């Protein structure tokens, strides 16, 4: 198992199954943890960072040898990887952008099925995350809790009796937990109700992020809903708060889709068909346009407007058409305009059911 194998596969969390998977892409939980006997990353010297990485590498190997962690899990020294590989891991949501771009010794442990990853020397010494397809927060908590226990057998965490797990940023102190659900909400965006929904989420202290957390303008109508508070509530309570709001959002999105079908079926069908048409025939296409069109197509499949395509294929295309994925899959370094050509070609190959990428058979 290496990075190239990972590039051509697609993770457990993208398989497009699980409860409510037409709207809920994935459920994720992460824990922030620090070793008690080292400074936090911002005050750690290069030697400290290298020592933390060395110690944790050793402890994770010990877990693998004891059969407690999957033997086939991948240990990658992120600081030694070329930029395209680091970017690839970000696109795959196995590491954060901060982790990819920061300095000093850093590593990541990756489950080959992408059910979990553990970042070493991100903002905290350890960032453990678990991913599940669909809405499955209770299962995700159960898994990450076990994983956390396993790691804790090996190291002493920074912990304070009153304040809980101590983290580099006070926004994470206490449980150190971030519970998040990635939702696909295209109909709420089309009907311009999405802002109203966000406002009500803000009122109950939930945060909204884009697909890669980079801003409010979520590319392709994908939104991550997560807790902001980490102190004063149990992990289960925090997970439940997110889990409780998701059915409401799903219901709003379904209502908005029904409204669009009822009031403007032709317009909606036209939008979906045109999106599919462009994706199958374009000769050069940007990542942003691809995401936006795949979003329409994804909704079209769920509404029965497109019959010949499956959700897991669309989920996979969303990730595989990102810049670093295209370069890994083609085995070439590509500049932006070459990537747009390669992306269009990749889409034609995967959406036309032949390998020529010809538009003639549409």
């Amino acid at each position, binding site marked *: 198992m290496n990075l190239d194998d990972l590039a051509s596969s697609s993770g457990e969390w993208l398989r497009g199954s699980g409860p409510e998977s037409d709207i809920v892409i994935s459920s994720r939980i992460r824990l922030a943890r620090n070793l008690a006997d080292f400074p936090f990353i911002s005050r750690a010297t290069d030697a400290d960072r290298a020592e933390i990485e060395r110690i944790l590498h050793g402890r994770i190997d010990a877990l693998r040898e004891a059969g407690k962690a999957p033997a086939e899990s991948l240990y990658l020294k992120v600081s030694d990887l070329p930029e395209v590989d680091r970017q690839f891991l970000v696109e795959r949501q196995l590491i954060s952008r901060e982790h990819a771009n920061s300095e000093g010794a850093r590593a990541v442990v990756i489950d080959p099925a992408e059910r979990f990853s553990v970042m070493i020397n991100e903002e905290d010494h350890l960032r453990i995350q678990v991913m599940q397809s669909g809405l499955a927060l209770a299962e995700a908590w159960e898994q990450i809790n076990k994983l956390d226990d396993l790691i804790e057998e090996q190291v002493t965490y920074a912990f*304070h009796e009153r*304040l*809980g797990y101590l983290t580099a*940023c006070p926004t994470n102190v206490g449980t150190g937990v971030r519970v998040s659900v990635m939702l696909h909400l295209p109909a709420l965006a089309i009907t311009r109700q999405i802002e109203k929904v966000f406002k009500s989420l*803000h009122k109950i202290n939930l945060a909204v992020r884009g697909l890669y957390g980079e801003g*409010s303008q979520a590319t392709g109508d994908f939104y991550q809903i997560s807790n902001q508070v980490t102190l004063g509530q149990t992990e289960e309570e*925090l997970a439940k708060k997110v889990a409780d709001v998701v059915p409401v959002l799903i219901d709003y999105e379904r209502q908005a889709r029904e409204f669009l079908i009822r009031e403007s079926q032709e317009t909606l069908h036209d939008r979906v068909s045109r999106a599919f048409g462009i994706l199958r025939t374009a000769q050069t296409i940007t990542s942003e346009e691809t995401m936006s069109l795949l979003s329409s197509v994804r909704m079209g499949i769920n509404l029965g407007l497109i019959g010949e395509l499956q959700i897991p294929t669309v989920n996979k295309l969303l990730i595989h058409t990102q810049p670093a994925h295209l370069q890994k899959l083609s085995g070439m370094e590509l500049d932006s305009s070459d990537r747009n050509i390669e992306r269009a070609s990749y889409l034609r190959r995967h959406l036309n059911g032949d390998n020529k990428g010809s538009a003639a058979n549409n």
Partner: protein
Amino acid sequence: MKCQKCDRQATFHITDLIDGEPSELHLCEECAQAFLSPAQEQGQEMMPAMAGLLAQHLAVGETADELARLDQRACPVCGITFLQFRKQGRLGCPHDYVFFEKELEPLLVSIHDQTRHVGKVPKRCPHGADQQTQLIRLRREMKEAISAEEYEKASELRDQIRTIEASFREKTE
């Protein structure tokens, strides 16, 4: 968490690239919209995450003198000053939560509305890890002693570090 530009709740968490460096912003909806429409906010310098929030809190009930004195306080374990924390929004070591407890309290209330953890507790060292904290301090002091060519002091510190490390190994084995 409150918006970095006003008093409302921050619900947009934006990673902005400034000179190619990612920088995190936490804004309420209105400020986020203003920020994301480039015509209005272009070129304006953004405060790093947390610093603005902290500055707001500290400005209340503190004179300039008090604030300056507070900013100079340095954690005896990792050496970070409160000013450095305010600038970067990240703490330096676990002991900062103890050393800056009073200063951090209003911040924790503002972010979490709570000051007491009620969730999971680790099986190992559930009551904290004082000896581990001492290791952070001793290692830093040893490094400083070596830089200052105080080798005798450095070797004493090394012995203390080894004693603590050895006691950990006994406990885990």
